[in-house]
């Protein structure tokens, strides 16, 4: 289990950021993606064997094949890289990174709950986990071994997600959809990120908060658009995550019903410039998918800008985490898309490339 208060002192930013920048530079670029979209699953696997993912591909190659192999290798590689981040860092920097990497606990719990819901076998779920978060092997094993969703939630009772999950479970029992549980996890994660920080205000912490409030804003934005778009009669405030500064709960309740006003609100905000293309696409074609990709791209762009504006801060590290996640999602989309026989153009539309 990760202890957020590992060592004192501000942390070794220079060292960690030099390494992070180098790793960021070795992520796949436009050319690589262009090549990948033309390949079949086998070729993608071969391409990955000659890249960053070599050791994972070799380790897993004997047991899996095809798209599954690609996916497991991606998961394992991500876990390795993010654990490296923690291994290098010290002091407050360590604390910030550890907090952020709890994202993967949320991902793991979601995966396990979904697995239980659809009755997947333990092995299938296990290979989808990304072991980069705060939960140790023992707890994850227990969760995997739990007989039902209720069992999973009971075992999480003592963790930070306990209270939120207990409330969501009741709702789940009534409606039999997983949305309340997943939503409770997301909310617990983001709200934990931005509360309980050291009370003493400092420059690194301000930047950490600035970065994360952007992420929270974008997530709220996406939820608001989904609700507005689907026209579903849902209480938008229930999906609202605290900590951002784009919306207040009252605003989101008002705006969620009205697409045009929502678009206008975003145009006026400080993300208006970055999201302009996406908003135009949304207004013209009404394509929510395209807009969501624009939101993802805008978040990446914004994170990159923050990390070059504040080179010795937490920003480059978090920007790297986002970029790496994006790469993994892209490769997965390509591999699955090729397997499902999508055309090159269709796959390219699925990718978020800067």
């Amino acid at each position, binding site marked *: 289990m990760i202890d957020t208060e590992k060592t004192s002192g501000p942390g*070794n930013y*220079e*060292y*960690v*950021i*030099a*390494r992070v920048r*180098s*790793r960021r530079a070795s992520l796949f670029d436009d050319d690589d993606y262009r090549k990948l979209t033309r390949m079949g699953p086998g070729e993608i696997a071969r391409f990955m064997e000659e890249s960053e993912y070599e050791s994972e591909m070799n380790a897993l190659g004997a047991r899996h094949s095809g798209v599954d192999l690609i996916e497991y290798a991606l998961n394992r590689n991500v876990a390795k890289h993010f654990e490296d981040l923690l291994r*290098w860092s010290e002091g407050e920097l360590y604390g910030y990174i550890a907090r952020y990497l709890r994202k993967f606990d949320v991902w793991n719990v979601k995966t396990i709950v979904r697995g239980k819901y659809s009755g997947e076998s333990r092995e299938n779920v296990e290979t989808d986990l990304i072991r980069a978060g705060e939960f140790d092997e023992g707890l994850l094993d227990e969760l995997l071994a739990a007989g039902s969703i209720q069992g999973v939630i009971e075992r999480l009772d003592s963790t930070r997600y306990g209270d939120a999950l207990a409330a969501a479970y009741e709702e789940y029992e009534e409606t039999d959809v997983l949305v309340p549980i997943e939503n409770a996890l997301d909310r617990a994660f983001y709200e934990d990120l931005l509360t309980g920080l050291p009370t003493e205000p400092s420059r690194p912490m301000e930047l950490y908060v600035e970065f994360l409030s952007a992420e929270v804003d974008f997530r709220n934005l996406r939820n608001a658009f989904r609700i507005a778009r689907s026209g579903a009669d849902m209480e938008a405030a229930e999906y609202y995550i605290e900590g951002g500064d784009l919306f207040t709960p009252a605003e989101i309740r008002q705006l969620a019903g009205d697409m045009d006003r929502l678009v206008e609100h975003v145009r006026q905000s400080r993300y208006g410039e970055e999201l302009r293309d996406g908003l135009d696409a949304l207004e013209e074609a009404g394509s929510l998918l395209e807009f969501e990709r624009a939101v993802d791209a805008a978040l990446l762009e914004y994170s990159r800008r923050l990390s070059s504006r504040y080179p010795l801060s937490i920003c480059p590290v978090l920007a790297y985490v986002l970029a790496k996640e994006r790469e993994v999602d892209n490769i997965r989309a390509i591999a699955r898309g090729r397997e499902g026989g999508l055309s090159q153009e269709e796959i390219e539309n699925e990718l978020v490339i800067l």
Partner: protein
Amino acid sequence: MIEALELTTVLVTLLQQGGQTVEAAPAIPTGAAAALAVGLAALGAGYAERGIGAAAVGAIAENDEMFGRGLILTVLPETLVILALVVVFV
């Protein structure tokens, strides 16, 4: 940093007092002043190298080819000390 500042204020007051009492001779002999200048310059260079060195080691750990460049950048603040050394010979 703060210690260095305090040191300089002490020195300045010492110099001023020295100026009042003994008109002819400076409060610290020239040799000692030069030594102080070199020492402080070395302190500054050391502080600068700390950050650069950490970043350089990080870069080298990721990519061996960075060794030469990292080494050069790390010792760049050392020029400060060399320039300060000039003071000794003036």
